[in-house]
């Protein structure tokens, strides 16, 4: 058993757990996109960022790949974490605004618009399909090719792969190639049909004060009462 601090509270983690597993074990919600139970962690989307360490040495790491360590101080809902996650969501939104998964993530994090140029790509390179294919379907039919700007996921030589059995696992797991949520047409890229409000506590405190999922549940209750 490893002893560490999670949002200031002493907790224990099994040897080999990631920070994400530890946080979820203690009921702390951390948004993820490229993480999927049963597939190896990949660390591509950076949505699951948490802050580790203290003072000027504190840094952001992806909790889905970072192993729990003895004596580590982890904070899952700080101002810095929240800002970084929002930035990530904005980038994802700009890449694939049609994805319901991303729209939902945006709504749950109170992201109202994206500062980046909208591209309408059909892939965010999260690698879920690649891992699904090789790890669960023993297909190994698709993978990453090229590099940098031209990186993409495809089959060898861009033709139908002999390994592919058309199981559809890749499409099942893809967060990008899906129908957009059917909310009212919003003017911007963000659907906005879910209630968008900002967490009030972060304006005053360094850490969020509760871990309700999605955040701002407190405000939403208030709104409902009115």
């Amino acid at each position, binding site marked *: 058993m490893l002893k560490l601090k999670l949002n200031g509270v002493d907790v224990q983690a099994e040897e080999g757990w990631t920070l994400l597993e530890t946080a979820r074990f203690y009921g702390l919600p951390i948004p993820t996109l490229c993480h999927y139970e049963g597939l190896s962690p990949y660390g591509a989307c950076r949505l699951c960022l948490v802050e580790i360490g203290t003072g000027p040495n504190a840094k952001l790491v992806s909790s889905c790949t970072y192993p729990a360590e003895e004596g580590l101080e982890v904070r899952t809902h700080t101002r810095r974490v929240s800002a970084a996650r929002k930035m990530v969501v904005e980038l994802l939104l700009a890449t694939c605004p049609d994805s319901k998964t991303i729209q939902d993530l945006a709504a749950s994090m109170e992201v109202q618009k994206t500062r980046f140029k909208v591209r309408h790509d059909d892939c965010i390179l999260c690698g879920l399909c690649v891992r699904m294919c090789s790890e669960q379907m023993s297909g190994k039919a698709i993978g990453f090719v090229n590099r940098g700007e031209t990186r993409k996921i495809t089959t*060898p030589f861009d033709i139908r792969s002999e390994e592919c059995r058309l199981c559809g696992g890749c499409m099942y797991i893809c967060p990008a190639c899906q129908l957009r949520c059917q909310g009212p047409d919003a003017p911007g890229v963000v659907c906005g049909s879910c209630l968008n409000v900002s967490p009030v506590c972060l304006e005053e405190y360094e850490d969020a004060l509760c871990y309700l999922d999605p955040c701002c549940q407190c405000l939403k209750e208030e709104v409902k009462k009115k």
Partner: protein
Amino acid sequence: MDVDLKKVSTIVDKYQGAGGALIAILQDIQDEFNYLPPDALKSVAEKLKIPLINVYSMATFYKSFSLKPRGKYLVTICLGTACHVRGAKNILGEVKKRLNVKRGETTEDKMFTLETVNCLGACALGPIMVVDGEYHGQMATRKVDAVLEKYKSKGEN
């Protein structure tokens, strides 16, 4: 294009089927055929018992591997910052004109393939043009012709 798969097989055997030797194997294949023929990649994957996509990913990741047939000599023009400020663009333009190809293309006589790179780490020699692994520093547009001619006559006999 027919590929002599026996040659591929000899190359792979040289590395005793070690999966970690993939890059080295691909390099040797490229030396042999001047590019990476699809059939060769397939046979490498089979022999090493690794998925074809892994071989393909590797082959497309590195710029020095080419999946398209290349000319006899590879002409590389540096467009890095140092070479750029010394007029690498003009050199590139001149070479393009002389060879009548665009970036990444091969001349009709299969003699030259034109490529660009962003800094070769020899900035003091800029602008640089590399032909067949030989560095030609301090290039100027008027020198281009002579350099190309040299290789052309070398390649013809």
